[in-house]
């Protein structure tokens, strides 16, 4: 949109404007070529490599790697982890965004900074802190051992570490969106006597649904793909505590490259779906914004 107006602007006033108002044509194409080469080398080549290496030894081996029992159980655990971590962080994201954007209170900026904290922490440290808490020599270690409970090196630890790493995603997406929308509509509904839940569901929700969906999709992509944090708290037990990324690592380290890349191609598909969803949602948001301006 912005591109087309500027292009028209250039075309419309080309007679009055000096030629050095923009880069000369050869320079434009030079910059475009360098940019495209860089994107091709750094971003696109790795994508193609995963697919190529996965299929190099034939479709049969490719499919065999996907339906192998260890791969299936890794897939199941990965989905279980995402199914718990993503809703938890979604609930938090909505609550935090409501509190931050609809009310004034002291310490709001501190809360905002703390929400971002997991982004600033290395994934390895995100896993380490749960070992310090729940490991055999951790704070709750003796208690857990006495009650025959296991958190670290088992599924609960993987879920906790993933929840930590994906903590800010939904909140980060919703807060700027709800801030920009203000609270007049909600206040109008409240003054007409609508109840809290009603206000949220019928007034706020229609305005934020696409942003919320985008936050959930990003959160989900990271939850499924998390490697470092999960690597620390997983016991690396085949068929039991391996998520898909950890399964890929094991296959790779055992020199089963084709199988490793075959499983990796599943995660490439997930990444591409995420990117497509992102651009669809952005287009919808832009259209909705344009409609609002027309009204």
């Amino acid at each position, binding site marked *: 949109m*912005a*591109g087309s107006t500027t*292009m028209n602007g250039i075309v419309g006033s080309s007679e009055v404007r*000096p030629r*050095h108002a*923009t880069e000369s044509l050869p320079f434009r194409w030079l*910059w*475009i070529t360098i*940019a495209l080469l*860089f994107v091709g080398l*750094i*971003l*696109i*080549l*790795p994508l193609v*490599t*995963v697919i190529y*290496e996965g299929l190099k030894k034939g479709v049969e081996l490719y499919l065999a790697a996907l339906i192998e029992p260890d791969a299936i159980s890794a897939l199941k655990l990965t989905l279980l982890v995402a199914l718990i971590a993503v809703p938890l962080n979604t609930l*938090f994201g909505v609550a*935090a965004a409501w*509190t931050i954007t609809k*009310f004034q*209170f002291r310490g709001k900026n501190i809360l905002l*900074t*703390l929400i971002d*904290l*997991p982004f600033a*922490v*290395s*994934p*390895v*440290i995100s896993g*380490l*802190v*749960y070992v*310090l808490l729940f*490991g055999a*020599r951790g704070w709750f270690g003796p208690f857990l051992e006495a009650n025959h409970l296991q958190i670290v090196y088992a599924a609960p630890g993987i879920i906790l570490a993933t929840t*930590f790493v994906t903590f800010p995603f939904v909140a980060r997406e919703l807060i700027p969106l709800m801030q920009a929308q203000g609270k007049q509509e*909600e*206040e109008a509904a*409240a003054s007409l006597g609508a109840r*809290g839940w009603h206000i*949220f569901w019928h007034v706020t929700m229609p305005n934020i649904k696409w942003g919320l969906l985008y936050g959930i999709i990003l959160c989900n992509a990271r939850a499924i*793909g998390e*490697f*470092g944090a999960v*690597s620390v708290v997983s016991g690396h037990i085949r068929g039991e505590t391996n998520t898909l*990324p*950890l399964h890929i*690592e094991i296959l*790779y380290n055992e020199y089963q490259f084709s199988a*490793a*890349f075959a499983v*990796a191609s599943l*995660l490439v598909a*997930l*990444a591409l779906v995420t*990117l497509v969803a*992102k651009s669809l949602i952005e287009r919808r948001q832009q259209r909705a914004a344009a409609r609002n301006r027309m009204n």
Partner: protein
Amino acid sequence: MTKLKSKRIKVLPGFGLTLGYSIFYLSIIVLIPLASLFVETANASWDKIWQTISDPRVIASYRVTFLSAFYAAVINVIFGLLLAWVLVRYKFPGKKLIDGIIDLPFALPTAVAGIALTAIYAENGIIGKLFAPLGIKIAYTQIGITIALIFIGLPFVVRTVQPVLQELDREIEEAAVTLGAYRWRTFRSVILPELTPALWTGFALAFARAIGEYGSVVFIAGNMPFKTEIAPLLIMTKLEQFDYAGATTIALVMLLSSFVMLLVINFLQWRSQHQAISE
């Protein structure tokens, strides 16, 4: 008016519930676990902490981590600016596709990026093969680590510079042109100063992310102590040896440097907002 406003603020329901829940959940998932890191280090003896920090292998891992992150962030600032410029200012076929794929590093699991980059830059890989006859090794050296960190950090720079460039007032630029300034001079003395805060923010974000990165680096790094061993990997190694105090100490140093980066980022964003308001 102000009275009415303050009354209105209380109209909306759910403040206590949502604030209470947010703080409760934040404490359980983030704050208490992170506090364990500080307590664990506080419980360790000074001797042990000093022994860990002054260990040449630990120092070498910090140097590899911070230097590679720095090189990668510098390269990302240069190419991130170029990409943002090309995407905002020019029209070319496939532009939307390129714009969409910039976010790939956010969406692609780091382990997948790691094995793909290793396959490309290993001695028998499609690009590694080109450099092997020249005696240049890319995978399993610091160059490989830096490439992985370029991959991880690129969208941070592009996505912070792009919106600023879009909002940039073209009238100033045009004024410079009518005053007779040539393109390079207009760029250097009119456009670049406007972009500088965003470039610093992008640099800081990419750098901070690169310091902690693990998944995409471990495969391509080769993990040779003193040469290509990054600090996050050393934390893993110490944990596997049940050296909790050692792992925690290394982690705490990294965490504190991340906090400093976070403060710097917030300050930069605050300053650029402040400038926008005062204008």
